[in-house]
């Protein structure tokens, strides 16, 4: 069996990792990106992913976990398919971010770091996402949505719900 078929990652991501470790003077520099890209594919940083990343970089699993636990974007259990991250830091707060967050909570019926029943969405209050002049701003996975009011919330949700349905062929 080739290394590729044994990987917990898709062949595409496995090839990407092969190339990534070659980019740096020191292999280990690929660790943080690898963890993030693994999460993008699997939905979270799974034990199996940690094992394989450790193996690819010649590190111990403990070392990889130690690094992974430092970074706030990395998570160790699944989130919703679309993770809604509402910035409530000062610039967004001044322009009503908490009202936007409240509205998301109401619409989804979940609190901070909760996963909605349908599994399509999860909600998270996050620190500054670098969209201060266009606040209140959120990220849905990596997509930015800015200059929001609570009334934008239902439209954003239905847009992503549509995407989820289209992909799953409902």
């Amino acid at each position, binding site marked *: 069996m080739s290394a590729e078929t044994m990987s917990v990652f898709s062949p595409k991501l496995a090839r990407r990792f092969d190339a990534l470790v070659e*980019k*740096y*003077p*020191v292999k*280990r*520099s*690929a*660790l*943080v*990106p690898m*963890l*993030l890209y693994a999460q993008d594919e699997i939905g979270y940083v799974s034990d199996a992913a940690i094992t394989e990343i450790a193996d690819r*970089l010649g590190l111990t699993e403990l070392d990889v976990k*130690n*690094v992974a636990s*430092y*970074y*706030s*974007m*990395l998570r160790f259990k699944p989130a919703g398919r679309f993770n809604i991250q509402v910035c*409530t*830091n*000062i*610039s967004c*707060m*001044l*322009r*009503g*971010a*908490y*009202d936007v967050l*409240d509205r998301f909570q109401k619409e989804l019926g979940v609190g901070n770091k909760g996963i909605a029943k349908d599994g399509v969405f999860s909600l998270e209050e996050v*620190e*500054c*996402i*670098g*969209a*201060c*002049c*266009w*606040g209140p701003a959120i*990220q849905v996975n*990596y*997509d*930015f949505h*800015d*200059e929001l*009011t609570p009334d934008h919330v239902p439209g954003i949700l239905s847009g992503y719900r549509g995407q989820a349905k289209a992909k799953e062929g409902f």
Partner: protein
Amino acid sequence: MPRLVSHPDEVKIVSKRFGMGAANIDRYIELGGYEAVKKCIAQGPEACPAWIINEMKASNLRGRGGAGFPTGLKWSFVPKQSAKPKYVLVNGDESEPGTCKDHLIFLHDPHAVIEGTMIAGLAVGAKMGFIYLRGEYRYLLTIMEKAVADAYAKGFLGKNIFGSEHEFQVVTQTGAGAYEVGEESALMESLEGKRGIPRIRPPFPAVVGLYGGPTIINNAETIASVPAVISMGAAAYAAVGTERNGGTRLFCLSGHVERPGVYELPMGYNLKKMIYEVGGGIRGGRKLKAVVPGGSSTPVLLPEEIENLGMDFDQVGKAGSMLGSGGVVVIDDQTCMVEFALRTISFYQHESCGWCIPCREGTDWLKKSLTRFHAGFGTEKDIDNIRYLAENMMGRTFCPLGDAAAMPTLGFVKKFRKEFEDHLNGKPCPFAKQGAVELTVV
């Protein structure tokens, strides 16, 4: 897509290609791109490093990340001979609340970052540069990666850049969520695949940096300014700003202004004018209560303190605050400053890496105290305790995060003591919740 704004007072140097499609390499070249690096190479291999560093020194360009250290001087600290490879590191881990300028640079002008990195490499004799973007900026990383690939395809990067004997490689890197990594030594740790814990200095990065090699690390805006300095000439660049503060700054005007946005204004531009003319004044015709001049870690200023305040590193420093990262957060008179202080400290508590005890414990206790205070359960003694805690964090941590949390807290307590007192004895917060702003504006 982040909205671009414009004002007649702007002097567009770093932002001159914003909104012009310059992420496309051919368009960038059409707009004069990659001429600056060619100009540097044309000085010849012997003269080139000293020539660049002299230009940078004469330009009075100072670090745009927050500390305002003179860029040319920083570059001159890199030893000429080194057994280990030298590196250039671009800090695009933009995470200081109130700051979103690098966001626009990566989006609209990624090649300026590459070109600036190359020039920095030529100046110090580095053959490799890293451009580190915060993990949340994934779509910007994609843009940056494409720009780097295009530059390789044209032969601008690689073994013999522009047919010269110089080699330069550029690697892009993503973070994964950590404010602390914006600190230079923590960023190097992260780039080496470790937790972003700051290093003890000295030695400074210019001598022992990434992988133990001499490293220059600059903010993305600083690096994006470099080609402009070279193209227009140091003297012309310096002339735009004030004494010892060359050029322009991307000011991120946010909060309660009518027209928030990123404006490129000359160094030394009057803050009051920036808020009232460039930003269109306070939203909803309200009054100004306070302004955070340079990202959330800089002490707050009162309306009377900004009357004649020119926005450069020295003048804002003299006024008791810092020019910082250029994040100008405007606060109106309906805002509860205790809540604002609480939100500010909550951020630093969340982001403290936990290595230094004064920061780890200090931010946590400040958050607890302010939470209780804002809920109306504070005591008179708490106000002094908050101040005491913050004072004892100052200067007692390895990296500036401890100070970054303590400085604004001290400012809030000192300048808004009355508001703290108004919360005493179980009184409810005298201000409506922040979100209510939208509802009450007629």
